[in-house]
C-alpha cells in the first residue's frame, strides 16, 4: 500500500516518542528474557546438581552408631551413608569444614580440577579458595598433615555455605573441603553424621522421613539431630531465590510493558487525531476501513517487533554472566547454559500482543467517526474533559491554573506520567528499602549481649564460668502452621545475655515464656494464649502458654527458663547443649563443639550486603533511564501539543523563561505525586517479595520502612531525570516559530 511509504517519515517526525516506546519495549523484553532465562537456568542447574550428585533427603545424628547399615537400608528402602566432619581453623577468621568423601549420597561435584585420586589430595569449595587465594596445586596443612589442592568442588547439601543453620548469610572466611575417608580416619577425630536418600521417588520424602525415624526408634536408636532437606537452609534458599527471580521476571517487565502500552496508545491516538482530515479524505477517496486500520496498526506492531527482537536478543547475552555471578554465592557446577525457546518466543510475542490489542482498540475508537466528522478535523483537541470542567481554579494564580489545566488536558498522558514516575520510583526505592530493612536488622542486635555462641555435640552438665550462660534450643513447628519452623530456647532466668523488651520498650523478664514478634505475627498469638507446638525431631506435641511478646525481629524464638525447658521437653535436669559467652571458653578436648562469634554473624550480613550496593546502583540506573524516557516523552508530547500556544505566547510577548516555566514546569507536581505514590507501591512490591522469602526460608525482616535519607536520595534522582528531560525539551520550545499560530486557528 502506497500509504505505508509515509510510516518511516511519520516515525522520523516524532522520533522521541517512538524511540522512547521502542526503548521501553527493549527494556521490558530484556528484563523478561534475562530474568526468566536466568531463573530457568539457575533452577535447572540446581535440579541437575541435586539429582546427579544424589542430594540427601535428610541428615541426622544418633546417640550411638548404627550397626548393620546395609540391613537398615533395605528395611528403609533408602541409601544411607555415614560421613565424618570437623571444623579446622586455618587461620584467624578462616575456618574449613572438612568432610570425608561420600560415595553414595551428597557426592562432591568437581567444578574445576580433578577428583581425589589418593591420599594427601583435598578438594576445596571454589568460594573459599577464591576468598583465600588458594589455587589448584597449592599445599594446605591440616593438623600437621600436608594436603594438595587438586580441585574445587560443590556439595549438594552445602549449596549455600552457611557455617551454622541459624545464620542467614555465609561467613566470608568459611568454606568446605573434602578429603578421602582414609585421610580423615588418620586424624582420629571428627563427628559422625548420616545422610539418607529414600529410594521411593513416588512418595513424599517428608513422609518417608517420618517412617524412617519410627524405624530407627523401633530399633532403639535415638536421634539427637534431624534435618529434612526441605528445612536445610543451605539448600532451600535456592528455591527461595528461584521464586524471587520468577517474581521479578514477571513483575518488572510487565510494569514496563504496561508503560509502553500506555505510551503507544497515547501516541497513536494523537497521530490519528492529527491526521483525521487525511483519514477523512482517504475514506472519501475510496479507501476501506480495513486498509486504514492496517496502516495505523503498523505503527504499534513495528515498535513491538523492533523492541521485541532487540530486547529479547540483548537479554540472552548476559544470562551466562549472571548465572556465573550467582554461582559465586550458590556453589554448584555450571554445566552449561540452556536457552528456553518458549520463553524467548513469549518475550518476543508479548509486546506484539499487548501493543497490537491496545493499538487496535484505540484505532477502532478513533475511526468510529464518519468521514465527514473526520474531515472536519481535530474535534479531540478542543474537547474539555470532566475534570477540567468541574475544577474551580478562579482563586489560583494564572501560572498555577495554566499548569493544572495543562496536566488535566490529557488524562491518559497524565496516567502515563504518574505510572512511569511511580515505576521508576519503585525500582529506585526497591534496593533502598531492602537496605533499610537489613540496616535495621543489624541494629536490632541489641537483644544479644554475648560475643560467642557455643554449640556442643553432646549434652553438658558442667557449670560455666562467669560471663557465660548455658542454654538449649530445639526446632519446633506450630500444629496450625507446619510450614515455618522456629526455635524454642531455654535460657537462664533473668539472663544477662539475652535482653528482651516489650512494645513500649520496657524490659521483659526472661523468667517467663516470651515469644519474638515474627513468630507472634505468624501464629497470630497474643499474651496469655496457649499454643500447641510440634518438636521437629520426633513429632511430639507440647502446649506452651505465652506470657509476653518481645518487640524484636532477630528471629523466630520462644524463650523460656532453661529449667522449665528441660522439664517440659523431657531433657535431663541441669543439662544444656549450647552456651552464650563473652569470652572464649576452655572446653575439654574430648567434647566436640562449634563456636560462632556474633561479630562474625554481623560481618557475614555486612559482607552479604556489599553486592546489594551494586544492585541498588544498577536499579537506580535503570530507574533513571526509565524515568528520563517517560518524563522526556511526556514533556515532548506537551511541547508538541502546545506548539500553537507556545507560538501564541511568543506573539503576546512572553519571554523564553516564562514559556519554559509554564510549559515545561507544568509536570512538576505530577512528578512529585508520582514519586509519593511510588513509595507505598514499593512497600507493596517488597511485601510480596519478603513474604516469599519468609514462606521459603523463614527469613524474617522487621516491618518495612525506608529511612528518610534514602527517600531524599530517591527524590533527588527522580527530580534530576525531570530536569534532564526539561533541558532536552527546551530546544524544542525555542524552535517553535511565531508563524505557527498565525497560520492556524485553534478554535
Amino acid at each position, binding site marked *: 500500500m502506497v500509504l505505508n511509504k509515509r510510516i518511516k517519515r511519520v516515525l522520523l517526525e516524532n522520533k522521541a516518542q517512538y524511540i522512547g516506546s521502542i526503548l521501553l519495549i527493549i527494556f521490558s523484553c530484556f528484563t523478561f528474557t534475562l530474568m526468566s532465562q536466568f531463573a530457568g537456568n539457575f533452577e535447572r542447574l540446581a535440579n541437575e546438581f541435586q539429582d546427579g550428585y544424589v542430594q540427601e533427603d535428610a541428615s541426622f545424628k544418633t546417640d550411638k552408631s548404627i550397626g548393620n547399615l546395609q540391613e537398615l537400608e533395605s528395611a528403609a528402602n533408602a541409601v544411607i551413608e555415614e560421613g565424618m566432619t570437623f571444623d579446622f581453623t586455618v587461620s584467624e577468621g578462616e575456618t574449613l569444614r572438612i568432610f570425608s568423601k561420600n560415595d553414595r549420597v551428597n557426592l562432591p561435584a568437581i567444578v574445576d580440577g580433578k577428583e581425589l585420586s589418593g591420599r594427601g589430595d583435598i578438594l576445596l569449595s571454589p568460594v573459599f579458595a577464591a576468598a583465600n587465594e588458594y589455587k589448584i596445586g597449592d599445599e594446605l596443612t591440616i593438623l600437621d598433615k600436608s594436603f594438595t589442592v587438586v580441585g574445587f568442588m560443590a556439595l549438594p547439601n552445602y549449596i549455600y555455605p552457611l557455617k551454622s543453620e541459624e545464620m542467614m548469610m555465609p561467613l566470608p572466611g568459611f568454606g568446605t573441603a573434602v578429603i578421602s575417608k582414609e585421610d580423615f580416619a588418620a586424624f582420629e577425630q571428627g563427628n559422625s553424621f548420616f545422610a539418607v536418600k529414600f529410594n521411593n521417588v513416588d512418595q513424599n520424602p517428608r513422609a518417608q522421613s517420618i517412617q524412617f525415624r519410627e524405624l530407627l526408634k523401633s530399633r532403639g536408636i535415638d536421634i539427637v539431630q534431624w534435618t529434612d532437606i526441605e528445612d536445610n537452609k543451605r539448600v532451600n534458599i535456592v528455591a527461595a531465590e528461584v521464586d524471587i527471580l520468577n517474581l521479578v521476571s514477571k513483575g518488572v517487565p510487565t510494569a514496563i510493558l504496561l508503560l509502553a502500552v500506555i505510551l503507544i496508545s497515547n501516541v497513536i491516538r494523537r497521530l490519528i487525531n492529527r491526521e483525521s482530515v487525511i483519514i477523512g479524505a482517504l475514506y472519501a477517496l475510496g479507501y476501506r476501513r480495513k486498509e486504514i486500520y492496517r496502516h495505523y496498526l503498523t505503527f504499534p506492531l513495528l515498535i513491538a517487533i523492533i523492541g521485541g527482537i532487540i530486547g529479547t536478543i540483548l537479554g540472552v547475552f548476559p544470562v551466562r554472566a549472571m548465572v556465573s555471578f550467582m554461582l559465586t554465592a550458590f556453589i554448584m557446577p555450571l554445566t552449561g547454559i540452556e536457552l528456553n525457546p518458549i520463553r524467548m518466543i513469549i518475550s518476543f510475542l508479548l509486546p506484539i500482543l499487548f501493543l497490537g490489542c491496545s493499538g487496535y482498540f484505540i484505532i477502532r475508537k478513533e475511526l468510529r467517526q464518519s468521514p465527514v466528522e473526520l474531515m472536519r478535523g481535530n474535534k479531540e*483537541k*478542543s*474537547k*474539555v474533559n470532566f475534570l*477540567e*470542567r468541574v475544577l474551580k*481554579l*478562579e482563586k489560583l494564580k*494564572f*501560572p498555577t*491554573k*495554566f499548569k493544572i*489545566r*495543562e496536566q*488535566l*488536558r490529557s488524562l491518559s498522558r497524565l496516567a502515563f506520567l504518574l505510572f512511569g514516575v511511580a515505576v521508576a520510583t519503585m525500582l529506585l526505592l526497591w534496593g533502598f528499602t531492602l537496605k533499610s530493612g537489613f540496616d535495621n536488622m543489624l541494629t536490632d542486635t541489641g537483644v544479644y549481649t554475648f560475643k560467642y555462641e557455643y554449640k556442643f555435640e553432646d549434652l553438658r552438665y558442667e557449670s560455666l564460668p562467669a560471663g557465660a550462660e548455658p542454654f538449649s534450643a530445639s526446632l519446633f513447628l506450630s500444629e496450625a502452621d507446619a510450614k515455618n519452623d522456629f526455635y524454642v530456647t531455654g535460657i537462664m532466668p533473668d539472663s544477662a545475655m539475652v535482653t528482651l523488651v516489650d512494645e513500649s520498650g520496657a524490659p521483659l523478664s526472661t523468667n517467663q515464656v516470651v515469644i519474638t514478634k515474627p513468630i507472634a505475627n505468624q501464629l497470630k498469638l497474643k499474651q496469655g494464649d496457649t499454643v500447641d507446638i510440634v518438636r521437629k525431631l520426633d513429632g511430639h506435641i507440647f502446649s506452651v502458654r505465652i506470657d509476653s511478646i518481645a518487640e524484636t525481629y532477630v528471629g523466630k524464638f520462644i524463650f523460656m527458663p532453661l529449667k522449665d525447658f528441660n522439664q517440659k521437653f523431657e531433657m535431663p535436669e541441669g543439662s544444656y547443649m549450647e552456651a552464650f559467652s563473652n569470652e572464649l571458653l576452655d572446653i575439654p578436648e574430648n567434647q566436640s563443639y562449634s563456636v560462632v562469634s556474633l561479630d562474625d554473624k554481623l560481618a557475614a550480613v555486612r559482607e552479604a550486603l556489599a553486592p546489594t550496593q551494586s544492585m541498588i546502583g544498577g536499579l537506580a540506573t535503570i530507574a533513571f533511564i526509565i524515568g528520563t524516557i517517560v518524563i522526556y516523552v511526556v514533556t515532548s508530547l506537551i511541547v508538541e501539543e502546545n506548539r*500553537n*500556544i507556545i507560538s*501564541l*505566547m*511568543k*506573539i*503576546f*510577548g*512572553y*519571554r523564553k523563561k*516564562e514559556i519554559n516555566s509554564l510549559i515545561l514546569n507544568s509536570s512538576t507536581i505530577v512528578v512529585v505525586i508520582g514519586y509519593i505514590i511510588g513509595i507505598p507501591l514499593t512497600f507493596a512490591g517488597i511485601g510480596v517479595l519478603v513474604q516469599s522469602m519468609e514462606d521459603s526460608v523463614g527469613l524474617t525482616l522487621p516491618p518495612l520502612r525506608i529511612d528518610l535519607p534514602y527517600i531524599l536520595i530517591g527524590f533527588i534522582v527522580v527530580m534530576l531525570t525531570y530536569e534532564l528531560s526539561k533541558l532536552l525539551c527546551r530546544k524544542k520550545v525555542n524552535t517553535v516559530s*511565531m*508563524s505557527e*499560530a*498565525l497560520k*492556524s*486557528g*485553534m*478554535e
Partner: protein
Amino acid sequence: MFIDISNLKKSYKSGVVINEVLKGIGMKLEKGEIGVILGPSGSGKSTLMNILGGIDRGDSGRVIVDGIEVNNLNDDALTDYRRGDIGFVFQFYNLVPNLTVGENIEVVSNISKSPLNTDEVLAAVEMQDKKHRFPRELSGGEQQRVSLARAIVKNPKLLLCDEPTGALDYFTSRSILLLLQQVNKKYGTTILMITHNAAIAAMANRVFKLRSGEIVEAAVNQITVPAERIEW
C-alpha cells in the same frame, strides 16, 4: 505620526527563488485612528502586519510605531514591544481550548504591567456571563469577542486585527466591527485591520489598498461610517 512606514521592503527566499513581498511600502496613521488595509491574497498585507506587530522584520526601510524604530529592535526588545504595546486579533481567534474565557484573557494580563480589569473588558465585549465557559462552548462570534477582549486587556497602543470577520457571518461580523469601533473610542486604541472586505473600509479613518507588495491607493475618510450601518 503614530505609525510612519517608509520604503519598507521584504522578500523571502525559497531555494533559488526570491519572492519580493513588500516593494518599498510607505504609509502613515495617526494615534487613535482606525486604519484598514485592503488587498487580495498574496498582496503582502499579512507580512506588513507582522512587521508592524514585531513578529517579523523588514529587509530595509523604516517602520516607526509611536516613536519606536521597530525594524532596529533586537529580539528581546521586540518581545518587550509586543508585550507592552501591541494587541492581536486573529481571523481564527486562536483561543487556548483548555482555558476558560477568563483564563484566556489572563494569558495576556498575566504578563502585562498594568492590565485592565478582566471583568471590565469582558463587559466591554458583552461576554461577562460566559467567563467560565470553555472556547468550545462558544459560537464563532463569541470566540472573536473573547479574542478581542484578550487583545485589549493590556490596553495596547496598537491593535492589529488580521481578518477579524473573515470566519464570521454578516451579522456577527458587524457586531465585531462595532465592538472594534467602541474600543477605539473608549480606550483611544489605534487599530489597524487587514481585510478582503472592501465595505469595511467605510468605518476607517485611513484606507490602504495593497497589490503585489505595493500600496496602490491610500485614502483618508473625512467621515467614517458607524459599523452598524455598514452593509455588504
